[in-house]
Structures are given as structure tokens and as C-alpha cells.
């Protein structure tokens, strides 16, 4: 089945220690998104890739970076995690050829100690 996969599902990192979250997709969608969702809040868009074009939301902290080496993979790098970065990180994909309906991965829950 076509899907969006995120690894790891749970990540514990230390304050200030860089961490990378991974997302892959078999849907062959050209748009990939990263969201941050804190407890009992709505998902907040951090950035997205339209093909290779990177689009950063204006209020996304510089501490967050992303890479998309190919269509299937996208990475979220947090350079120096703070306690406030503990959250669920959701990857989603959509196709620009259709309704832009977003398909979400299972998420990575990040804990910062």
C-alpha cells in the first residue's frame, strides 16, 4: 500500500543535541510538508517542499532545517533542541495535480531531556 512513513516513531534527545527526523513516501507526491503539533494544539506548518523548492513559514525558527534529497525522502533537522521543541512532528504529502489533500505519516514524538 502506498504510504507515508516516519522514523523513528519516538525520539529522545538531550537539550542542545542535534536530532534528525526522517520521512519517506511511496505515493510519488511532489509536495512534502513538516508540521509541529504540541499537546492539545492544532498542527502548525513549519515548511514544505514543492518538488525541490523549499518554502519556509515566516515564523519557523532558524533552529529548524529541512532537506529533501529526492522525491521520496524528506528530513527535519533540529540543530539545538530546546525543551520547547518537544512535540509530535508530522510529515505529510500531497499532489499538486489533484485536490492537494494531505496524507499524513504516523508522526515522530520528540522528547527533549
Amino acid at each position, binding site marked *: 500500500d502506498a504510504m507515508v512513513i516516519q522514523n523513528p516513531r519516538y525520539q529522545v534527545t538531550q537539550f542542545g543535541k542535534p536530532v534528525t527526523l526522517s520521512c519517506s513516501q511511496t505515493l510519488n507526491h511532489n*509536495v512534502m*510538508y513538516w508540521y509541529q503539533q504540541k499537546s492539545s*494544539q*492544532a*498542527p*502548525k*506548518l513549519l515548511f*514544505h517542499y*514543492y518538488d525541490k523548492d523549499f*518554502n519556509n513559514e515566516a515564523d519557523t525558527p532558524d533552529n529548524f532545517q529541512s532537506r529533501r534529497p529526492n522525491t521520496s525522502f524528506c528530513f527535519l533537522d533540529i540543530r539545538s533542541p530546546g525543551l520547547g521543541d518537544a512535540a509530535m512532528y*508530522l510529515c*505529510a504529502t*500531497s499532489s*499538486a495535480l489533484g*485536490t*492537494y*489533500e*494531505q*496524507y*499524513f*505519516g*504516523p*508522526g515522530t*514524538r520528540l522528547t527533549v531531556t
Partner: protein
Amino acid sequence: ELKVEQNPLFLSMQEGKNYTIYCNYSTTSDRLYWYRQDPGKSLESLFVLLSNGAVKQEGRLMASLDTKARLSTLHITAAVHDLSATYFCAVDMSRYGGSQGNLIFGKGTKLSVKP
């Protein structure tokens, strides 16, 4: 600034009852989406509404869109416990400088269906 407001934010209802969740947004948008999220899980797409007057139904859930009123509703018919989850509406931001497909989410409605 595009704002998306859902109400109620919390909804406790009994099995068998009907109820409606409302999603208001501040200015014109071309697309509106409804998602379901179970505790600790990711988001599942429920409905995509693309035009004024669009109505979609899946099981006990029915969603509608009135672009003139800037309002979408998610109607629950004869609720069952399995519908307990948080429901988010999301609006496309493309008319506000965002790329097509970029979404702003409402705060979500946490639904609890009790026997």
C-alpha cells in the same frame, strides 16, 4: 490574516444523538478539509470540500461547505463510541500568500461519545 475557528472545542455527547461541529474562517478560501485525530495518533483525512454547496458523507459523518458564509459543518448522526476523537478543519492558505495546499488548522473539536 486568515483565521479558522471551530466550535465547540469540546463536545460530550451520548450515543445515538446528533450534533454539528462548526468551522468558520475569516476570508475566502478555495478548499476546506476535515481531519480526524485519535489520541497519540496522526491525522486521517475525512473530507475534501472544493466548492460552494459541496456536501460529502461517509457513514455517520456528513460535511458541507458554504463559501459565501465562510462556514463548514461536520454533522454527526446517531453517534457511536468509535467516533470519539479530535476533529480538525483546515483551510487552504493559497489566497493569502501561501502556496497552494498549505493549510491553517482550526484548534480542533475534541469529541467524546458516551454510552
